[in-house]
Every structure is written in C-alpha cells, then in structure tokens.
C-alpha cells in the first residue's frame, strides 16, 4: 500500500492510549451550561427565557445572520439562567439548563426532499459546524463560491492522545461515509477522498468494509503517521498533490476539506433528524485516572467529565481543551463542552512542557521541522524585538501554528506564541 504524506513535519509520540476504548455515553450532569457561541461568527441569539421547559433537541438559541449557527438543548429540563460565563478563549452567554433526567427528545421534521438546497438547509437548521476545532458553520462552507472538484474528509487525527475520530471511524464507519457522501452531493460531486493515518489500521479496515458493503464511492487514502498530517494544507498536498497558494484557501485549488465528526453529524441530521447537541470526545493524559472516549452532551462541564473519568491525579499540572499541540491550556475546570471540543487532556508534570525558555542557539531545528517551510527562529526573534515588518517577511502570516517548531526546539522557546503576537500586530498595523 502506498503511504502518502507531505514534506517536513515531525514525529511525535502518539500516546493514543484510548484507541481501543469504545465510545461510552457520559451520564449528563444535573446542570448543563450551553454556550451560544460555539462557532466562528456571530453568537446565536437566545430563544428561551428562564423558566421555559426544554427537551433534548429544542432550539434554545437561533443563528444570528448567515455566519452563525443554531444551538440546541442537550438535555430535557428547565432553563434556570441565561448568564455570561467564561470560555477558554474569552466569555459568552451561556444558557443554564437543569436536567430532569428524562432525556425526552425533540427531533427536526423529516426531510421531504434530498436535493442540494434542502440538505444544505437541514445542515443549517441542525446547527452543524466544523467539529475539528474551528467551528466554521458548515452550511456556509459547503456553499462555496469557487468551483470545487475534490472533497476530502480529514481523518488523520494527527494530534497525540486524541482518539475520538478514530473510534467514530471504527464504530460508525458507515455513518461517517454516508454523511461524507451527502456532503459530497451538496458540493455537486460524485465521490470523495478520506485521508487516514496509517497508525489506525482498524479504522482503515472498518472504512474499507463499509465502503464495499454499501457501495459508497470514495477513495481511502492511507497517509503516513506524521504531525501535522491533519493540517488542511498538508492534507490536501498528501492526498491530491495540490499546493494551496500562500495566503489562499483550499477552494483556490478546488478542494473542500471536511471533518469526520462533521460528516457523522450531517448523517445524523439528515437521516435521523437529530440536531447537533452531543459529540464524541477523548478524555486522556497522565493526569487523569481513567482515560476514556465519551459521548458527551454539549454544555457538560469539564469538572463533570473529570468526575466521570475517576478524577484528576495530584500530578496533573495542565488541563488542555483540545490537543497537546494546538489546544488551549485552561486554569480550572469551570468550562463546558461545546460542539468543537474534541478532547480534554490532563497532563502530568512528566508530559507537559513547563520548562523555562533558554536563548536560541541557531540550530535551525525549527526550520527543519516547519511544514510550511518557514524560518521560525527569525519570526520569533523579530517579533520579540518588535520588528513586525521583518517577522512578516519571514512568513509569520503563513504560519499554521501547528507547533512543530516549538516542539523540536532544544532551547524550549515558545515560538508559536511569538508568531501569534506577530500575526496580531501585523493585522493591527496593517503591515
């Protein structure tokens, strides 16, 4: 089998300890805190008031404008508060619902027609967003302005520890492939490519048998297990050989890249008329007693997940929302799961990088690792010196923030942080 890949990048220890633990339902807590801003774009407008009773699947916040998304209740019960709460990246209005434990469901009306417009409308009303982490509303993404000739499902899952997409592929290969086929149909395409890293042989087998059994038109592209194989531009290059131009989007080369979980949710919304209010999620790391893959209802607080997984160990020094390479570190557990939360990691002292940075020794290991072929050491140096024009010259704006540079830095310099600073300053100053 030919294994495809991209240039440069790094090898990271996979640490996929949960790859054989099946997805289990996480019991929903007594209270859920559902954010109205679980996507990129305008926050949704709350459509319920304190005291209203809701079911799992009731619309509780409606999309505000085109680039926004509907929010649904994940449990049945009554709304007890609509209040501002902090999120890992800022703050947002949260709708607090007390769970009555009945889990009554409210479905969307069945789809009458399966044409492009109806399906796209269904995706929009089911509140589906890109579930890989960005959270871009799916109905906007799948109505591209430029012509598209290739649709890729990104099943690389190159971040260490995370295995929820892997388990989805193994346990729900047919649903994922059908969802992807529906999305391909929306784009007006006949088939699609699904790119999987070769460290998931069971997922590849499951995909192949589902493909053969149901006659789904797709190409299963086996990719080398290398970080960041799942980065959009690297994924496109590995599967199609096309290079997204600097500063461009995948649509510039006629490609749309979708996420595994998004495809699954599209299937659920179209075939089962279920809006998006729960997702698969990995809880892992050396700082948690029982690492698990869970089905979690949105709005479940991290502290509830922690309790469900046996609690954090005393050794836990860092909690991360997302993967260890690109996720956000958070100081406590008073946050709730959103549509885009793929993993919550509890890192022990041995795993986490808590070292102080040392001076750069010009070893160029960062430049050797950078999948975008940049010179991270110069961006770092210029950003810290305040010379953002030079930082831009060395490609600060092309950085995908994958973290390969900082991972391979012997001096443990927080290069990605400097790049983010540079990006922000360049945007502010319009350099």
């Amino acid at each position: 089998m030919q294994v495809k890949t991209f240039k440069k990048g790094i090898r990271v220890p996979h640490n996929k300890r949960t790859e054989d633990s099946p997805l289990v339902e996480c019991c929903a807590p007594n209270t859920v805190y559902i954010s109205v801003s679980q996507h990129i774009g305008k926050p949704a407008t709350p459509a319920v008031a304190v005291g209203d009773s809701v079911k799992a699947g009731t619309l509780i916040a409606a999309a505000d404008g085109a680039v926004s998304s509907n929010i649904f209740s994940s449990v049945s019960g009554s709304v007890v508060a609509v209040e501002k709460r902090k999120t890992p990246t800022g703050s947002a209005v949260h709708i607090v619902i007390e769970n009555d434990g009945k889990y009554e469901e409210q479905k969307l009306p069945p789809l009458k027609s399966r044409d492009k417009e109806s399906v796209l409308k269904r995706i929009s009303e089911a509140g589906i967003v890109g579930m890989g982490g960005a959270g871009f509303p799916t109905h906007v993404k799948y109505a591209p302005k430029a012509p598209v000739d290739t649709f890729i499902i990104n099943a690389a899952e190159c971040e260490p520890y995370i295995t929820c997409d892997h388990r989805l592929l193994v346990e729900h290969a047919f649903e994922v492939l059908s969802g992807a086929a529906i999305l391909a149909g929306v784009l007006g395409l006949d088939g699609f490519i699904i790119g999987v890293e070769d460290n998931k042989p069971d997922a590849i087998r499951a995909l192949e048998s589902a493909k053969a059994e149901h006659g789904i038109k797709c190409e299963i592209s086996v990719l080398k297990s290398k970080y960041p194989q799942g980065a959009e531009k690297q994924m496109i290059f590995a599967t199609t050989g096309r290079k997204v131009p600097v500063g461009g989007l995948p649509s510039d080369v006629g490609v749309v890249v979708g996420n595994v979980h998004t495809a699954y949710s599209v299937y659920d919304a179209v075939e089962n008329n279920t809006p998006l209010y729960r997702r698969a999620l990995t809880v892992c790391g050396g700082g948690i007693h029982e690492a698990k893959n869970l089905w979690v209802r949105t709005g479940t607080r991290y502290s509830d997940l922690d309790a469900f997984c046996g609690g954090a160990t005393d050794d836990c020094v860092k909690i991360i929302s997302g993967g260890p390479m690109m996720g956000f570190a958070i100081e406590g557990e008073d946050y709730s799961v959103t549509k885009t939360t793929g993993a919550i990691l509890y890192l022990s002292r041995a795993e986490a990088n808590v070292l102080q940075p040392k001076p750069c020794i010009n070893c160029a290991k960062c430049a050797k690792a950078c999948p975008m072929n940049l010179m991270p050491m110069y961006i770092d140096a210029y950003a810290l010196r305040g010379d953002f024009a030079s930082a831009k010259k060395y490609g600060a704006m092309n950085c995908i923030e994958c973290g390969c540079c900082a991972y391979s830095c012997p001096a443990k310099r927080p290069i990605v942080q400097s790049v983010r600073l540079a990006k922000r300053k360049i945007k502010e100053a319009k350099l």
Partner: protein
Amino acid sequence: MRKTVSASPHITNPKNSTRRIMIDVLIALLPCVIAATVFYGYHVIINIVTCLIFCFGTELLYGLIINKAFSREGVKKSSVFDFSFAVTAVILALNVPATMTVWGLNVYNSSGTIAFGFDTVVLCALGSIFAIALVKMLFGGIGKNFANPACTGRIFLFIAFGGAGAFNFCASLFDSGVFGSGATWLGTRNTVTGAMLLDMFFGNTATAAVGETCAIAILVGYIYLSVRRVIDARIPLIAVASTALFVFLFDVIPSNVSGGTVSGAAMFYETSAHVLSGGLLFGSVFMLTDYSTSPNTFVGNVIFAVGVGLITALIRSFGNFPEGFSFALLIMNLTVPLLDKYIVPKPFGYVKPVKEKKRKKAAGEKGGERE
C-alpha cells in the same frame, strides 16, 4: 488548584535540549581526546582541564558581572550550565599542540623532555578567556556569536605566539619517521607513500593541533553526531569533498604536471594526504557544523562548506601557512549573516508574483485587442 496556562504546544521533545546537544558533542569528541592522549601523552589532558576551568570561570564571571548578581541565585541562573563552554574548551584544547614553549617556563624530566609545560597552561588559559569573553560572551553568549570561539581562540594563539615558537609541531610518541623529523606532511610536502597515508589515517604523525590527528576517531565522532542528528551529515562531506577537489585543481595537478611524468596513483595519494592531514576532517565535523556560526538553511550551509573548502585549498596551495582550515572557517563565518539574509526558503505553496512589466504587457495586449 489553578493549573499552568501557557501557549500551545503543551508538549515538547523531552530528549531534546541545549545541554543534551552539548553533551552529545562532548561524547563525539571523546574518541579524539583518547587518540590525542595516546599519540601525544598526558599533556593533552592537562590542556583540556585548563581550558575547561578557564572557559567555565570566564563565562560564569562574565555573567555575574554583567547581571551584577554575585549570589547563589546568580550562579544558578548562569548560562554555563548548558555546557556549551565545555565544547568550546575541549575543541580549543584539541586545536593546540600538546606542549607550547614561549617563555621556557617548563619543568623538564631527566631525559630532557617537558614534564609540565607552564607556558602551555598559560597559553591555554589565555586562549580560553579570549574565546569565551571576547568571541562568545561579548556578542551576547550562546547562539549570538558570529565566529567560532574555539577556532578564533586558536587563531589568536597562533598569530600572537606562533612567532615565539608556540605552534611548533609536537611529534607523535610512536613516530615511525616516515615524514622526516617532527614535521607534518603539509609542512614538508614530501612525495606521499602508502606508509605515510596509513600513519595519517591512524594519526601517528606530528601535528600542531592534537585533536585532528586520528581520522578514525574523527570518523567515529562524525557518525555519532550524524546518528544523533546533532549535525547534518551531508555538510562535513561537502566541505571535505570540495577541499579535495580544489586542492586537486590548485596544487596536486600543477605539482605533478610540472614534474614531467603524470602518475594517477601519485595524484590520488597526494589528494588523500591533503584530506587526511591538517584540521580539515576535525574542523569539518566539529567546527564547521557549529550552530550559531553556520547558516540556517541547507543551501546556505552548502555554499558555506564549499567556501571553506575553496579558501582552505587556496591557503594550502598558494598561502603563507602550511594549513588554512581555521582561517578559512573564520573568513566564511563572516559571510553567514549574509547567506542567512539572502537565502530564505520559499514557504509551502509559494506562488511567484507576476512581474510588473509582464502584467503591464498583458494588460496592454488586452487593451489593444479591445481597440
């Protein structure tokens, strides 16, 4: 308990640190240290210890003075604990003769050979202080220096004290006499024989820099550094190959052709002798690949290595000195900022911008059609 918050990535390669890299280089230098001690005696160890002490002391003191932190805390925060001083020290000690005589303050034993060279210790200390304080720390410490500290320290000693006889060759303890008395092949340029090549390969020759004597020891170090990915294995090869090529062109061919008879074997022997003698192998592996004084791109490194090869060959063929690797390296160190400024890799997905002229031309043509 509040957890640590920092920017991603949250994990790092635990096997990778500045100190680990420096320790790797020290391990790679070990075979050279052993070979030098075998061929030139215990003086090598004295030199290494002297250099280590003075490099350590200089860097520590410099840091304490600059930070005005004469406390236990200041010592703890000192940059010496990345061990880069040790690499400089060992390379410098391996780059000088086993014993140097300037003022003659030596302790001789009954047979008239030097038992303890006080001059040598003083010179090693001077070289260390020069290398660390002037070349490395004044420019901002590790990663900021533009010239290789050990190489520059050696050149300082060579130029300042060479006239007084400090850099006279020290003979191997097992001298087989094939090179003539106490001289290197680069100094005499005798006709090369197989026995000479064999001695050069094992390191049994006179030398002015003890570390560069044994090709096998250097090779072991080279393989270790390449396997550990501390250095790019291609760069030393390019440097050695380009030196061999230029020496062949500038020196081997002219000297053989003017001799009347052209012998392929003689030319091959002579080129091999060039490769095996002098600081070429040692410098290519341990000094050319120094991170802060070599370019950051592969293309830049290739130009750098070829440049070093060219200048080495020029000095060996037409220069005033028998050997010129350290000079070549120092000269090419000066080009590194330039190489790094102009050789910037194109980012992934780079599109060549359409040139202004072409765009105008295309626009003009379109305009013409419309008319």
